[in-house]
């Protein structure tokens, strides 16, 4: 069971990196929208796991994407940020009961899941585009990119989520 768990996460990690860099980085919808579906890894990652390991994994995931897209360490900075504040977001969305042993993401309501995902995406994209553009003079450009890319990411993540959702057992 445990090795199965690790195996699943390794496969997920590799597939999401490849799908991101080979397909979604080249999408350029409307000339600038490249959805970042690899956020799903951080959304799906088990809740009970060690937080330090989770942040470390987030760093590796971001760095892997950075290597392919020549973006220095911007993806890494944004993924560790959402990895670090994920428990806070979960407490906000699901209330205190996410700390119980029996808590499962698949047992929560659809609205809660979407809110959780949206918050992750917004925080991630804000950090990402602020670092990428790196000037307050272009704040409107940052906002435009966050909203447009965020919407595309959310739609694609929801589609992927319903395609490969964890079975209810």
């Amino acid at each position: 069971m445990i090795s199965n768990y690790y195996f699943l996460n390794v496969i997920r990690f590799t597939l999401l990196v490849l799908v991101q860099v080979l397909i979604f980085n080249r999408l350029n919808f409307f000339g600038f929208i490249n959805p970042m579906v690899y956020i799903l890894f951080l959304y799906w990652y088990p809740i009970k796991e060690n937080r330090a390991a989770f942040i470390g994994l987030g760093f590796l995931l971001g760095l892997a994407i950075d290597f392919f897209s020549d973006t220095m360490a911007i993806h890494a900075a944004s993924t560790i940020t959402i990895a670090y504040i994920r428990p806070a977001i979960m407490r906000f969305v699901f209330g205190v009961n996410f700390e119980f042993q029996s808590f499962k993401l698949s047992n929560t309501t659809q609205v809660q899941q979407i809110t959780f995902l949206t918050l992750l995406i917004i925080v991630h994209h804000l950090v990402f585009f602020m670092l990428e553009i790196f000037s307050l003079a272009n704040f409107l450009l940052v906002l435009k990119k966050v909203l447009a890319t965020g919407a595309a990411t959310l739609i694609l993540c929801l589609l992927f989520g319903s395609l490969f959702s964890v079975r209810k057992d």
Partner: protein
Amino acid sequence: MQQIINFIIRYKNFLLYIFLMIISLGFTIQSHSYHQSRFFNSSNWITGNILDTSNDVSTYFGLDQENQKLIDENKRLRNLLFNNNLGDSITLDSVQRTYTITTGKVIKNSFAHPRNYITIDQGERDSVKPDMGVITSKGILGIVENTSKNFATVQSILNEKSNINAKIKNTDHFGSLIWDMKRFDVVQLVDIPRLVPLTIGDTIVTGGMSSIFPEGIPIGTIRKFDLNTSKSFYSIDITLFNDMTNIKNVYIVNNAFREEILELQNETQTDDK
């Protein structure tokens, strides 16, 4: 002592986060003022090979278009050749050549970011070195920034750090070519003085001031121009000849005298001090 250890254990996640954040920010900010990092780029072995494999597959979908582009270029070159009465072939003495050309293929293109880098499938093994110019059949593309054994990354002209010497065709008025990060088909030419007569549609080519590109490589045409706030220089928008979203075959230009030029310029500068 006990308390310090307790503190570290209590806040270990936060400390880890801060530590990793500093590393990432360090890499990112360093690249704002200096060159792209030597290691954090897509020309390394793993990423290069993965991108290359995926490119091998996707190349097939654009073969017709690419062939057409190459035929068009051959047609243009033949036209030049025949109308200059040079016969069918020109003999070139390798000692006299200033510029040598290598061909390459784009395996990763990007144009949606403020800093775009293109990865090509030629590297040190094909004697591609940093600071060589990269052009396509239609016009200028960028400058080689990093190389590995088999791959190289190119700083595209669509990069906020890009700064290339350019001039108005058939004149000697030159300026700097920069990009305002807004549109991938429009770049900006600055530092052209206001006394220069301009018309919309004028052609912009590379200038002779750079030791990277040969003089006269096409860049684009003037789309619109305004005087800047100080009213002494124009800021000009240029529509690129190249479709930056659709690039496959590129030429890498090596200037044999570049090192000599740089050495001379450095000497002159140190003499001044």
